[in-house]
């Protein structure tokens, strides 16, 4: 039985010392092309965000069960699967963003990694409705994010059918 509900700490990927979610985080900032020779997923986690200003120590601080909240066009740029797999390696459960790069979105869906769209994320993070490391709950099917520290809930775009089908099978390759 696949899990559709997660509780964990939310990392809000903001610009240094501000409440602004970083837009257009490119795959070279998520997983730099210097490490593209790596094909073993267990070795990918340590490089997550190591080229994103202010977040270079993310891999040391992240814990299994964490949730990532990011800005618009997250995962822009290259087609590298490692930019999705590195989060899986760290035990991150779900990435929520204002929008995703088109290829990144496919890569996450096809490898059965949960991602959800949160159109209002910028406003809610800027308004401190969700703060870095708040405890949150995410429901993939309902499309809901609840800040467990305040009880406030927010609407996300729920899983699409293809996303659910692939998630159920773990990966596109089992379909």
């Amino acid at each position, binding site marked *: 039985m696949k899990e559709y509900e997660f509780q964990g700490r939310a990392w809000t990927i903001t610009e240094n010392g501000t409440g602004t979610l970083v837009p257009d985080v490119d795959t070279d900032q998520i997983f730099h092309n*210097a490490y593209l020779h790596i094909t073993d997923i267990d070795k990918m986690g340590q490089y997550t965000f190591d080229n994103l200003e202010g977040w270079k120590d993310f891999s040391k601080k992240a814990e299994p069960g964490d949730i990532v909240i990011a800005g618009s066009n997250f995962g822009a740029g290259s087609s590298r699967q490692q930019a999705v797999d590195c989060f899986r390696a760290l035990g991150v459960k779900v990435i929520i963003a204002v929008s995703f790069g088109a290829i990144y979105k496919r890569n996450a869906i096809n490898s059965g990694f949960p991602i959800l769209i949160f159109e209002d994320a910028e406003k809610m993070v800027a308004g401190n409705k969700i703060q870095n490391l708040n405890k949150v709950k995410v429901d993939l099917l309902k499309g809901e994010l609840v800040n467990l520290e305040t009880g406030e809930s927010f609407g996300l775009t729920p899983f699409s*059918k293809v996303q659910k089908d692939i998630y159920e099978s773990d990966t596109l*390759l089992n379909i």
Partner: protein
Amino acid sequence: MTKQTVIEKIFQNHSKEEIKAGNIVWITLDVVSARDFGGPNVVKNYMKAYKDAAVFDAKKVFFTFDLTVPPKTIQYANNQQICREFAREQGISVYDVDQGIGTHIFMESGHALPGTIVVGTDSHMNILGAVNCFGQGMGDVDITFGYRFGRTWFEVPHTVKVELTGKTGYEYSAKDLTLQILSVLKTDKLLGKAVEFYGEPVEKLDLAGRITLLSMITEMGGIVGFIPFNENTPKEIMALNKMDSITPEIKADADAGYAEVIKIDISNMGPMVSEPPYPHNVKKISEIGNVKVDFGFIGSCTNGRLEDIEIAWKILKGKKIAPGVRLAVVPSTRKVYEEAMDRGMLQDLLKAGAIISNPGCGGCAQGHIGMTGKGEVMVSTGNRNFPGKQGDGKNYLVSPEVVAYSVLNGYISFEPKEN
């Protein structure tokens, strides 16, 4: 029958399902490829999921090694060898480390033709829009499935129509036009969408110019772009592929449904530059002041065609680049390299002070032709200038003309010809 855009029609020819923007449909694939980045991961996934089952069609499946060519570390060498061994077992062709950029090879070898669908582990696969082909970059899981079954699911993208008008007071490059368009569309207008460009400023572009513009649809967040062929485009495609005829261009229906129509007037455009740290951080060169240059790069899938090298050659022939400045030239493919050599361009560029590299993704992929150090300024004909991508230095994206003038003068510059 509903009126359709170019991408909808191409999908329709590859699917039994109803093609409508927003629908998720299954489409067949004409070519499925993987590079030396992504390729070994594909092999690993494939062996795990499908063991020794044959790929869907060995004639339609390829490896293209273009990133770390030749391999600079043992790890990359091992990765390429993993792909070669899989290719031998499966009877798949490999465009090896001596051949150049995969997407460009597909446009020179009869694989990417009007109306086809070509996918690979290259986010600039959408360059193939230049030959009216739907090119799509994909990750290794996607490509593994494509290798095995020759099909994939796709959410039919909405299409944006961009109409260009206006005349400029100088002979602008395709890169100037591209950066001008990027400065208007940024990364949100096309996110997840296809785009069709119309109007004289784009329709007059030659194939190399179309490649420049359509390669940077990726930096605009878009899926793929198309420009209606002009009377020369089919001839250029035939000449490049040494073919006597090609399949006809797929055109949009006159009243196809567009998500948005955007008009862009280029009258005010000047020589453009994309300032770090983002490609869409576009300015006119006249607005950035005096920026000293340390390193110039001409090449990449965006500006690595013979026409691009020729532009730089005409400016640099018989001259010397400024003292202390370096220049690297990387032809996109072996064919481009040979033609540039036969016409004496590489010799003249070498004498002007350039480093001439073997064909491939050098200049964008990490390591080859070098990186920049802290404080260094690079002018590049590439397509990305994200922090850290090319090293610790600053990377300005410009046209081949601007790279040539900048390495001559020692600062970012352009010298206009009268139009």
